[in-house]
């Protein structure tokens, strides 16, 4: 078995190119004859668009052409990939999402016109000479006001601003209400899950290119899923068949969800390149990113937990408003529903659950998946209400959780919200986190803080997530307009080296390092004999890309299945070469042996025979050694864990400082522990960012007030502590070949409630009757809560 196989923390092969400035990001690509586009964007949130006069701008130096909505009359809108059915069996309201504003402006940042010029500076200069004639309308920003009778409508052709009113599980509603009526104790909490901007450090970029000789188009784009973009843009927007369209996503500088979606700029550059017969490039500024990248979260929730007299959870009821923004982004409708409602059981045995979600159109940027997508929103409200219940009943929050956990002997466990957890051990991660954080020793630390005039608190949260997205037949029933399998082609070369072409996409996750470890383990060769190719539809099989912590669980499983086919065929060849029965052939340490004999052929001898088939069973098998597998998971995977946060609060200023953070996760089997730990660090960093710093704020007119890094508080090195991580509590996934669960989102899901619970705890210990503070816990908010 190679020492660099599964479970080894080998260094990342990606790193040298990034550390020396030799990465190849989309903006690093410049094509011959390239023109540049600048988008003129709306600076008001809601208006009737009377006309756009481009005549002066068109005469400016370097301008090649100016496009407006009229140029896209023969082109489709940006498609939505998920249709949610409402409580009454009706499909959601689904407005057209045009490439450029048609007749009406619906959010600040919406594209009004596109100037293509020889240089980006010329395009920008010319855009300033475009005259836009519009009549401003009142903006619809607050979700509850948007749902009020007589509210101004974002879309005139819809019946209201309500996209859907979703009930889950609708048949449980009466039984849930009955349980609440008979409960010994009910804990109620109203809270906001603050709107966020994903902010991968690389802004989005798109370059369209058109080849006249074969009438084909190529799009270079900062995407997490190039095949999805090719399908959506080709089939639904521009009408280009897949074989005439190539999408390339080279090195991508972070995604966090917001680079899943198909954006207008991608379609524009592809379209304009064909019109102009020149490559057309767009590079987003950060300011544009804030008003054009899909935002995340933005839920307003009331949650109620019913307990019996022995503190067992007997029912849960939630009522959530979820912001969709002005249009439906690619997967937006699925986030507050199937990625949120299905998680409301959390780690608990709560038998009756009812979730209501009203998805609302507003004059804001579209909202879609951001790291965790629905699951952080579910976890935050659940772990906050459980904490509040413990406080109300004077119980240790850890022990109230423990009492209500699904026990490890109860798996597989079917929750009342339609999912079946395959495996888990929630007490194990709880006990691990309690030990790692020295929970028992908290009081001494609190006294030490108190001596320095600081309030100290400790908070914990437990999370479950459904990832490894997703079984296609299941999500199809739930409204997905796509399959969610993954693919891999394993190409073994004549001299034994391997190239894996995967539909997964790496934009920081280190697949180029970790995926080869799996093949190395299976065949018994060194990982450096395996190369990973990803990010180009021209040389990878149709795959769904990377999001939802799915790459190793679904993409890795596809690679395993393809490699199993390779090994099966290689054994046939080896049997022929050694004149032995195929059933007796064993593969170990990169050599084929015949059981019970000393006969052996090396991996390279077999691969060479496959391509130089002189002595070869040509009547039985084809030459060559290349196999493809598509893997469609049988179920979601269910990582879980316990996070504990300790904070100090300055009573004079309300400033919160995170003193320690502990994450004990159960990710099932782990391929590269170093990479997994890094994923948790980053996820926790984003979760602490949400809880403490980040907030996307619109004013009543729909102007984005937090539209740059001067105003949107990104977590910086001084805001975060060292993060203690552990993934030794391992209950392997039971339904994929690697026993893996995925680790990409956990940190962002589990951390916000732990931090808020810790701050509320600190205030309580200081005698402040504060039951909740909405995120981000800025000094002003904490001070106001203390002194309110």
């Amino acid at each position, binding site marked *: 078995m190679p020492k660099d196989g599964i479970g080894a923390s080998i260094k990342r092969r990606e*790193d*040298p190119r990034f550390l020396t*400035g030799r990465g190849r990001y989309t903006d690093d690509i410049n094509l011959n004859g390239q023109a540049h586009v600048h988008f003129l964007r709306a600076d008001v949130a809601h208006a009737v668009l009377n006309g756009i006069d481009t005549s002066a701008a068109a005469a400016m130096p370097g301008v090649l052409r100016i496009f407006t909505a009229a140029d896209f009359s023969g082109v489709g809108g940006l498609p939505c990939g998920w249709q949610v059915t409402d409580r009454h069996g009706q499909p959601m309201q689904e407005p057209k999402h045009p490439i450029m504003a048609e007749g009406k402006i619906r959010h600040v940042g919406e594209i009004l016109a596109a100037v293509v010029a020889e240089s980006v500076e010329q395009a920008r200069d010319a855009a300033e000479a475009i005259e836009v004639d519009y009549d401003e309308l009142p903006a619809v920003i607050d979700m509850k006001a948007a749902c009020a009778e007589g509210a101004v409508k974002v879309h005139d052709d819809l019946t209201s601003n309500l996209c859907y009113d979703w009930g889950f599980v609708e048949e449980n509603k009466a039984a849930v209400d009955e349980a609440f009526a008979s409960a010994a104790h009910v804990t109620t909490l109203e809270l906001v899950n603050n709107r966020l901007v994903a902010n991968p*450090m690389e802004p989005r970029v798109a370059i369209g290119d058109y080849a006249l000789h074969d009438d084909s188009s190529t799009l270079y784009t900062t995407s997490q899923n190039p095949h999805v973009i090719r399908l959506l843009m080709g089939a639904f927007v521009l009408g280009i068949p897949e074989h005439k369209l190539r999408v390339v996503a080279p090195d991508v500088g972070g995604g966090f969800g917001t680079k899943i979606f198909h954006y207008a700029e991608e379609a524009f550059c592809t379209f304009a390149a064909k019109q102009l017969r020149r490559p057309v490039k767009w590079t987003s500024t950060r300011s544009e990113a804030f008003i054009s990248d899909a935002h995340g979260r933005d839920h307003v929730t009331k949650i109620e937990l019913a307990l019996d007299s022995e503190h067992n959870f007997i029912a849960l009821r939630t009522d959530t408003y979820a912001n969709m923004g002005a249009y439906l982004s690619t997967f937006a409708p699925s986030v507050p529903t199937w990625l949120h409602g299905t998680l409301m059981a959390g780690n608990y045995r709560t038998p009756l659950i009812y979730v209501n979600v009203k998805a609302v159109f507003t004059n804001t940027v579209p909202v879609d998946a951001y790291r965790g997508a629905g699951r952080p929103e579910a976890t935050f409200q659940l772990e906050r209400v459980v904490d509040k219940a413990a406080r109300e009943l004077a119980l240790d929050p850890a022990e109230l959780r423990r009492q209500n956990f699904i026990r490890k002997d109860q798996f597989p466990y079917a929750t009342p919200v339609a999912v079946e957890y395959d495996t888990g051990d929630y007490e194990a991660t709880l006990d691990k986190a309690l030990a790692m954080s020295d929970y028992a020793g908290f009081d001494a630390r609190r006294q030490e803080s108190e001596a320095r005039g600081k309030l100290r608190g400790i908070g914990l949260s437990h999370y479950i997530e459904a990832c490894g997205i997703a079984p296609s037949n299941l999500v199809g029933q739930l409204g997905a307009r796509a399959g969610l399998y993954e693919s891999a082609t394993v190409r073994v070369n004549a001299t034994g080296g391997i190239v894996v072409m995967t539909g997964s996409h790496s934009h920081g996750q280190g697949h180029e390092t970790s995926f080869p470890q799996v093949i190395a383990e299976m065949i018994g060769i060194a990982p450096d004999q395996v190369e990973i190719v990803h990010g180009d539809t021209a040389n990878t099989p149709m795959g769904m890309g990377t999001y939802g912590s799915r790459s190793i669980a679904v993409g890795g499983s596809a690679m395993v299945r393809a490699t199993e086919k390779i090994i099966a065929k290689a054994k046939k060849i080896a049997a022929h070469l050694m004149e032995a029965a195929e059933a007796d052939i064993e593969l170990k340490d990169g050599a084929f042996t015949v059981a019970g004999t000393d006969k052996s052929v090396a991996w390279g001898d077999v691969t060479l025979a496959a391509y130089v088939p002189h002595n070869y069973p040509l009547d039985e098998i084809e030459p060559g050694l290349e196999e493809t597998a598509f893997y469609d998971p049988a179920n979601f995977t269910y990582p879980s864990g316990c996070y504990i946060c300790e904070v100090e609060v300055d009573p004079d200023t309300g400033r919160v400082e995170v003193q320690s953070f502990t994450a004990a996760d159960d990710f099932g089997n782990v391929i590269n522990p170093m990479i997994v730990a890094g994923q948790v660090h980053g996820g926790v960093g984003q979760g602490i960012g949400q809880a403490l710093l980040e907030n996307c704020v619109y004013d009543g007119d729909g102007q984005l007030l937090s539209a740059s890094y001067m105003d949107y508080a990104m977590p910086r090195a001084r805001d975060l502590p060292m993060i203690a991580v552990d993934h030794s509590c391992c209950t392997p996934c039971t339904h994929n070949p690697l026993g893996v669960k995925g680790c990409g989102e956990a940190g962002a899901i589990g951390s916000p409630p732990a931090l808020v619970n810790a701050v509320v705890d600190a205030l309580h210990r200081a005698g402040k009757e504060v039951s909740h503070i909405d995120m981000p816990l800025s000094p002003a908010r904490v001070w106001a809560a203390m002194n309110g």
Partner: protein
Amino acid sequence: MKLKMHVNGREVTGEAEGRTLLSAFLRDGLGLTGTHIGCDTSQCGACTVHVNGRQVKSCTMFAIEADGAEVTTIEGMENADGSLSVLQQAFQDHHGLQCGFCTPGMVMAAAALLREIPQPTEAQIRAHLDGNICRCTGYHNIVKAILAASGQPVAMAAE
């Protein structure tokens, strides 16, 4: 306007408009695309380079202001034989990067710190990185990498 500067030890000449930022000149004029542009308010630090030995966000100065200057970019940071420098190697050893986009700026900032304070404390490292935003790592392994590069003992990356 014509301008001339020493970049990574080599004399280079080029043309830039008065409004061209040094970051844009390095990328578009010289093809040194390791210097990244992550924002437009001089906050993120992805474009950090050294100008006459000082750490500078290259989006905060015009190219013409660097006329005649000694400029070092991420492309000039490896050892003469092409191997990774001690600092770069520490970033790899301690998994101090994920997507790699902020990484050039982080390395340039860290190099400047270590020149100023050869053995910085964790708090000094975090304070120095205030102008460099990373969205992937939570800074945990970046801090460890810089501690390690300064010769101070740290646990290995998986721990």
